[in-house]
């Protein structure tokens, strides 16, 4: 088994299985905070997926996307939690 096959058939599936588990939590909730956590984690996992994928296809340019994901994902978490607090204020 070459490294690429290993990454392709083992690592990537492990990552996406994690993603499915995370999605399960996303859907189940129960609190909206859980969903936000799950979304955040899903994006983090996505970064991992992209990184592995870029190795498999030997395309370093795909890493740029991972970079953007890392930079930006934070903001939606900030915004969503901001919302959670703000809507209670009345």
């Amino acid at each position, binding site marked *: 088994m070459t490294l690429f096959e290993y990454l392709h058939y083992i690592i990537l599936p492990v990552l996406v*299985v994690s*993603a499915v588990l995370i999605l399960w939590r996303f859907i189940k909730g129960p609190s909206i905070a*859980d969903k936000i956590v799950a979304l955040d984690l899903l994006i*983090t996992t996505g*970064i991992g997926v992209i*990184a592995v994928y870029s190795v498999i296809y030997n395309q370093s340019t795909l890493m740029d996307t*991972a970079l953007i994901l890392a930079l930006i994902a934070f903001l939606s978490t900030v915004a969503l*939690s901001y919302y959670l607090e703000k809507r*209670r204020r009345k």
Partner: protein
Amino acid sequence: MIDIIIGILATFGALFVLFAAIGLVRMPDTYLRISVTTKAATLGVGLVLMSTTVYFSNADVTSQAFVIILFLFLTAPVSAHLIGRASYFIGVKLWDKSVMDELRGKYQKNTHILKSVVDDTPEDNVDHTKMEDK
């Protein structure tokens, strides 16, 4: 050799991500879920990224991966803090086997001010028994 290093890094990385995912599923309350996932996943993805830097081994990708890791480590705890705080504020309950809650009665509903002691204006404080999230 390099392939093996890559393989090991990726394996550990993927495993930590998986643990985080399992933790997210298994942990009984929101705070615990936040607690578990923030680090495991960050560490896991960090390891995966390390493996890519090893694979590509050029300055461009390395610096990128480095920046990503840095970013994740910088932002993940802040996210965790924000979500955790918001959860408490909107009244997400702690697991019933939790042993203590020293935050009780210290948030003020209207001003969002967090006091270090419980003072004599309890009616303004966040009370979990009166809220539920929808």
